């Protein structure tokens, strides 16, 4: 099967094509809207669309609509008395350390303005019983009002609908009758989770973004029709799995973390090939740095997340934003210390891009330090101005205290950014109870392999892996991802670990998952249903999630689970309470449709330990060393078994790998650079 994969990024868009078993990559600067971006990318790929079976896309539409507050006009229908849940939020300020004391703090607007949040009479109690029937006339009335107001999309969220979806389903039918054609999202079908703010926010986020996708798809199909494209479309979801158009249309908010999730999917595949069990992914690009743990072969997932200060409660990869990437602004605070972020130069880009940016950024620091080669940026396709970066740091120097040279200022900016990311990664590891020394770090994205070998030792990680085509690794991920749907079942009866009850509930979920895969035409052999269970002490509110073996649950499995729970609880939280009853809180199921994946291409072998030849050298600055004349290698010529002693810089078409003084690097048969730090 021939596939074209496009991963849209805020700064750059990555392209991978799989044709006749051959994988090719390209990367372009992102300009204009996503439709333009995708069309440009298709053109750039040079593939003949008539021969392509599948276009897989990692989209930024939802993410951009939310962070730029430019979503669809949306309405909300909710339980009488609770229309302001969306705006009151949890009454907290989602404050970072700066904003906690910031008297001028602003928060993003709610997805639905108050005037379009409508209440109807109905009520379900905490046991799932209907204690006030749905007033259908009121639903009709508010549907008509919203129709008159011209909303494009409606979210329906009632209290306790995750226990009893009856009212939401009925309200959906009525709205369909009164307001045909409007996009409808019910919370019980999208995100059947407890906590009304988080559920409302998630449902409203879907209502807010889904109509944008419909418009985009219409235009995209029209455009591609003229190129005689007859294949299908797949979209990357935040859970690391692909889904077809129909699903994306319905639950578009599931694509929120599309491109980063693609990178994690790529890493997951690579780590399996390499036989690595514990991986920390580190994706650093122009505007963000993201990290995700793969532990014992499973990517970490969550259903409690936040995006642009809005709660999103969907099963997704537990991707932590650990920094803002190369576009972070470097500045001097009132005491003269160099600081990095949290502001970033979204509109203009780094100074060296010559697009109007005036304030020095992290990417400019990489340029000043000699990590990035100005002559071959984006494969030589984009001109960058090193002098402008140097000049920006010179200006910075005037306000900084105790710093004598631009290189010194840049190296401090480099390490301050690293320290921030280290803190965020440590926090993530803590929340999961991981020892970072058990992990290898896989670095990709344009900037990831520059920073990775510097942060790894400070995290206690001793091995950094930089895969081939690190600068287009997200697009690669799209080629090797499976289809995946996640189901969550919040138990209405919090019981002990009742075997019969649990088996019955799982059976129901497996039926649902299996039939979804079947409907998509996935053959029985390629269907995979993976169960896991969220357990907690009866009195706690947060859970520990443990994987379950295939097949029915038995008493002996329960016993093992309970033992594993106490052990895991102690590991995560530092204590266990053997005398406390353990309950099953949530049941999870991932329904996976396996696709046939391309082999990762291998590079030619050389004698193990052979040192590659290079004639190129340049002066590069490293933390603690000053300028060092450093060999520069072209990655395209590296062979399996090659050995490189740091300091060294290895240039690839769309990314650069830095090996710091004292570190050693080796090339494996897939061309991955393995840095021992």
């Amino acid at each position: 099967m021939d596939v074209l994969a496009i991963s849209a990024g805020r700064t750059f868009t990555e392209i991978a094509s799989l044709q006749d078993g051959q994988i090719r990559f390209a990367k372009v600067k992102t300009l204009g809207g996503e439709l333009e971006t995708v069309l440009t990318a298709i053109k750039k790929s040079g593939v003949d669309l008539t021969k392509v079976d599948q276009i897989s896309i990692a989209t930024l539409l939802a993410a951009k609509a939310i962070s730029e507050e430019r979503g669809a006009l949306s309405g909300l229908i909710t339980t009488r008395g609770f229309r302001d849940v969306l705006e009151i939020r949890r009454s907290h300020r989602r404050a970072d350390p700066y904003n906690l004391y910031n008297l001028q703090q602003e928060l993003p607007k709610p997805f639905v303005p108050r005037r379009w949040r409508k209440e109807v009479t109905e009520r379900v109690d905490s046991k799932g019983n209907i204690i006030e029937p749905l007033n259908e006339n009121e639903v009709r009335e508010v549907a008509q009002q919203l129709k008159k107001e011209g909303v494009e999309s409606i979210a329906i969220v009632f209290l306790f609908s995750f226990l009893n979806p009856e009212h939401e389903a009925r309200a959906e039918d009525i709205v369909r009758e009164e307001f045909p054609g409007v996009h409808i999202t019910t919370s019980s079908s999208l995100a059947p989770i407890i906590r009304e703010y988080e559920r409302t926010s998630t449902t409203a986020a879907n209502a807010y973004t889904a109509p944008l996708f419909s418009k985009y798809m219409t235009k995209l199909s029209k455009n591609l029709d003229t190129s005689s494209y007859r294949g299908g479309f797949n979209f990357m979801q935040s859970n690391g799995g692909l889904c077809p158009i129909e699903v994306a249309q319905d639950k578009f908010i599931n694509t929120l973390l599309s491109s980063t999730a693609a990178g994690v999917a790529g890493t997951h595949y690579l780590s399996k090939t390499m036989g690595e069990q514990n991986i920390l992914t580190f994706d650093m690009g122009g505007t963000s740095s993201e990290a995700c743990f793969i532990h014992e072969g499973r990517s970490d997932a969550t259903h409690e997340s936040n995006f642009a200060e809005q709660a999103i409660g969907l099963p997704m990869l537990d991707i932590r934003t650990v920094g803002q990437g190369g576009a972070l602004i470097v500045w001097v605070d009132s005491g003269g210390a160099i600081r990095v972020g949290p502001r970033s130069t979204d509109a203009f880009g780094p100074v060296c891009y010559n697009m109007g940016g005036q304030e020095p950024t992290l990417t400019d620091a990489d340029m000043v330090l000699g990590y990035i080669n100005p002559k071959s940026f984006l494969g030589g396709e984009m001109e960058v101005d090193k002098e402008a970066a140097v000049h920006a740091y010179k200006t910075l120097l005037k306000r900084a205290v105790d710093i004598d040279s631009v290189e010194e200022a840049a190296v401090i900016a480099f390490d301050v950014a690293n320290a921030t990311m280290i803190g965020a990664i440590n926090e993530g590891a803590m929340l999961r109870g991981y020892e970072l020394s058990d992990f290898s770090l896989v670095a990709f994205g344009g900037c990831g392999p520059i920073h990775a070998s510097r942060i790894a030792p400070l995290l206690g990680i001793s091995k950094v892996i930089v895969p081939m085509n690190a600068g287009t690794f997200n697009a690669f991920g799209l080629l090797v991802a499976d289809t995946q749907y996640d189901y969550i079942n919040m138990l209405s009866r919090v019981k002990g670990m009742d075997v019969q009850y649990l088996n019955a509930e799982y059976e129901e979920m497996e039926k649902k998952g299996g039939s979804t895969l079947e409907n998509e035409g996935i053959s029985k052999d390629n269907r995979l249903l993976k169960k896991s269970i969220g357990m907690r002490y009866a009195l706690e509110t947060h859970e520990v999630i443990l994987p379950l073996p295939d097949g029915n649950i038995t008493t002996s499995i329960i016993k093992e689970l309970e033992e594993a729970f106490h052990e895991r609880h102690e590991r995560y939280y530092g204590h266990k309470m053997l005398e406390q009853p353990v309950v099953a809180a949530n049941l999870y199921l991932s329904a996976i449709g396996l696709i046939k994946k391309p082999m990762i291409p291998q590079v030619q072998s050389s004698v193990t330990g052979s040192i590659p030849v290079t004639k190129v050298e340049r002066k590069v600055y490293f933390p603690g060393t000053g300028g060092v004349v450093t060999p520069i290698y072209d990655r395209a010529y590296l062979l399996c078994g090659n050995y490189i002693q740091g300091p060294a810089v290895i240039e690839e078409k769309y990314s650069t790998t830095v090996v710091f003084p004292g570190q050693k690097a080796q090339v494996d048969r897939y061309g991955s650079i393995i840095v021992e730090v």
Partner: protein
Amino acid sequence: MTDKKIDLLTFEVLRNLFYSIPREMGAVQQRSAYSPHLSEGYDYAGGLADGTGDLLSQAEHVTLHLMAMEAGVKTGISKYGIDGIKYGDILIHNDPFTGGSHLPDFNIYKPVFHQGRIIAFSIARAHQADVGGMRSGYIGDSTEIYQEGVRIPAIKLYEDGKPNNDIFDLILANVRVPTQMKGDLLAMISACNYGEKRITELVNRYGVNTVVESMKRVIDYTELRMRKAIQCFPDGIYEFEDYLDGDGGEPIKIKAKLQITGDSIVVDFAGSSNQVFTMPVNAVISIAHAGTYLALMGLIDPDIQRNHGCFRPITIKAPEGCIVNAQLPAPVAGGNTETCSRVINTVFGAMAQVVPDRIISSEGDGAFNCSIKGNNPDTGKIYANYSSFTGGWSGRVSKDGLHVKSLRAGDTSNIPTEVTEVRYPWLVDKLQLVTDSGGPGKWRGGLSEEWRGHPLSHIAEITTNMSRLDVPPWGVFGGMPGLHTAIRVYRGYKEPHVDGDNLQGNKVENYPGRIGGVQIAPEDQLFARSCGGGGYGNPYERDPQLVLEDILDEYVSLEAAKRDYGVVVTSDMKVNINATEKLRAELKVKNKRELLFVDQATPPYAATPFRQIRMAELPKPISQHIVKTLKESGHVVSDEE
């Protein structure tokens, strides 16, 4: 590069790590705490102090916890002596009169040793849902500290790495839900252990001298930035008074005199009311510190890293026995919430004369705490729930206030209705923003929230500590007050419970803010409404289009738009420009709002008119400074009578 430069790099790395460790410690507490107040409400903090107990860094979800950590650690040091605190010890403390704040706030801390020497302290602080005493959770009617729960001086909860089970037993025997508290205490201990582990890792990696020296530099650096910022303020003496509701009697005064000289500030609370024994609104001195620093950090530069260096340029004085320096055996349960908020407002009022373009007047102002206790008919066991409401943020120099957000309570969260109903035998009838609760102004105050609910199949007991019922949040520079707080019980309710105001025949009981043990039956309904944020600037100067938007979103009613903003809207919901201009011209002459500094009197926002301060009542140089600064920010004000 020289050695000094390498140090600078390491220092920058360490500086950042010092601040991320407490956040990681906070995560430990959040994930493993038992009570929803911690796991859902986030009323906890993690922090580090240096080897002398000086605060090094803190990740606070609750800004109030900021100062109290250091005071707690220093109490332990002065009791045992630094040599009396041994490796493997963990100390616990909550006594308000020896550096604590109020009894529910437990401070647990652990020394971090290196080769026999204490180089740091790892600190966890969290609000406990119930600490025994006369009422479950919150107390609104205590008259001396002994009624408020178990009082713990600085003592050793662990010695030589082993738990002192007698102390655990003693504490747990004094509280209503011991399993819950035990889980919460273990979560705090886990956080302390985690902080100790991380500091030890840093010492192993960077060397003890580098780490200890960096701690000192981080604190010194904060002091440097504080002093530089304070130096930009005009020298002078700035005074302000704000008030607590007096429960029927005279309001209780908090008076602050700020003296700014060069790069330091002296804040003196002399002239404040004496401590009272009729209700638990006394604050101990650590609260006066917390409120003052909190207000000043927001105004000076919120970017400055919070640590002991913040405290050095600021001196705080309060006469012993006054409302903000209460002495044994004064009841202090509400000092943390109600009185701390008022300390913040008082400092804001004084600083409004220094940086009128940076201040806010209210911030989710006041205390809106509510504890519910009862016997759960499903389980037959006692339950105790503690929840809090939040008011509106005031209008600001160039933007409206946030709805239902608090500075003092920081990032604490409400408890979701669904979690409340799953865990407690209650039904929540309503949680909504209150139309017309934000004080009108050129920039409107944020809206408050209204909560209604009732118990299921049992009689429950309510204890509250709410404020701003009599003395509303002030509007500033012509802005009007935010709508006052209210607490009521609707008796003998008939179904449905939802909209009580419209139902005939039921009895409404209005309560003062602090009540203890009021009983409520399934057929009753509890009503609690927080206060709105005060307005900023003259409401007649507000863009009529913004008023129209507020009307469409029902933040402001048509009636209030006309009355308070002078905005007239046509029947097809457009601004009637001519009628608006005419009405505004009349109102400007009649009400002269541009001459007002502070307004706590305009009805219906004030239940009964309290006071107004006119610009002309301020010393001339100060009013001139205010007028000049505000004009530069696009406001119309006047100091001429």
